[in-house]
């Protein structure tokens, strides 16, 4: 009986110690990324294009800020150059307001123009799309829209979603992160 009691006590103690790490885990390094994506040589200085919808819906500040935030990460080779046209750009930005009920999506494409739906291939292009009507409908603040923009651009670097309660711009939902968080930074430094 005494032995059983000891085992039970020790099991309870270990549960208390171990369980918090069982509930969730930050995705780090290779686990934070899809296997597909742009080559590092592209990310080093990605050609980008902004559709006129970005300015007309008032998202220019957030897209510019998002690019600057990622490019500003030390020890990560991330950069952008504006090529001014759709055809030559690797990363293209759009804003929509008439369609499905989502805040943002990132559509990657292979070199033959096919949508890489399973995120496992080499990308030639990526479309970063924000949905202004969704954000209006759900009372997104300026900060929320900023977070959505930086989140969607993060997907163009092959970053996967992080899960609650991880502190990361790659978490889904109505959040207030407007800059890459330490976990995002370390993951991008690892990747690029």
């Amino acid at each position, binding site marked *: 009986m005494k*032995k059983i009691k*000891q*085992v039970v*006590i*020790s*099991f309870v*103690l*270990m*549960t208390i*110690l*171990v*369980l918090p*790490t*069982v509930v*969730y*885990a930050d*995705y780090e390094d290779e*686990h934070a990324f*899809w296997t597909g994506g742009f080559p590092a040589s592209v990310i080093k200085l990605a050609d980008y294009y902004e*559709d*006129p919808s970005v300015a007309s819906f008032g998202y220019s500040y957030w897209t510019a800020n998002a690019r600057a935030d990622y490019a500003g990460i030390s020890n990560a080779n991330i950069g952008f150059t504006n090529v001014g046209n*759709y*055809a030559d750009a690797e990363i*293209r930005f*759009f804003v*929509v*307001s*008439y*369609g*499905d*009920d*989502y*805040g*943002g*999506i990132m*559509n990657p494409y*292979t070199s*033959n123009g*096919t*949508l*890489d*739906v*399973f*995120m*496992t291939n080499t990308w030639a292009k990526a*479309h970063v*799309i924000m949905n202004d*009507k*969704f954000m209006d*409908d*759900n009372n997104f603040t300026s900060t929320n829209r900023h977070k*959505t923009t930086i*989140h*969607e651009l993060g997907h163009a670097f092959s970053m*996967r*979603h992080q*899960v609650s309660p991880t502190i990361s711009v790659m978490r*889904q*939902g*109505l959040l207030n992160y407007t800059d890459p968080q330490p976990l995002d930074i370390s993951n991008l430094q690892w990747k690029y």
Partner: protein
Amino acid sequence: MKKLLQSIIISGVLLSTTACGLEQDSFSNDTTTKKVASQIVADATVNQKTKIASMHADFIIYDSLSEIEKNADSIVLAEFTGQRQLNEYKTAEGYTFHQNSISTVNILKAFKGEIDVGSTIQTFEPGFFQKEDEYVNLEGYNLMNEAGKYILFLKKNEAGPVFTIVGMYQGKYDVTAPNQVDAQVNKTDIESEYLGENVDQFNKLKQEVLAKYK
């Protein structure tokens, strides 16, 4: 004391092994590894060989039916007419940068809003066939079919006449399919009402819908 310490160590090893297993399970559920299609088509024949590609979006996950109802301008019972078209978002130069579907439905009942019973409307649906046997969707949404009757939670759009389904998969429920979605098979079964990861949430919401809307 020595025996207690031994018990603690053994328990720790057992629990740590379990924890690693759980972490691996939660990681492996996140992405799929199927092949990419190469051709866009507007219509396709659905069969058990249809490949399913569920892409992720940033969206609101609803905890309750009341939240969905609050965000809907209209709540209706509708049937799909069979008319569906591929909807392409294009740049000014004509480049396509995104796709979904626009589907036509007949309104059978109206529970909220200004849509008339007996009328015909169109809704966006976040899914389309990239080629004849490959279905691409956002967050596990499956297209309406002509056999079903659907409770739809809809938002109107000032930009045009087509309605938006609230919360994508969270705003459409087939009342002719009372069985719960099976998480073991739904991601690969094109016949499943919901193809995504939030099966418990979908089933819970559906039960609420079936209980309230008949």
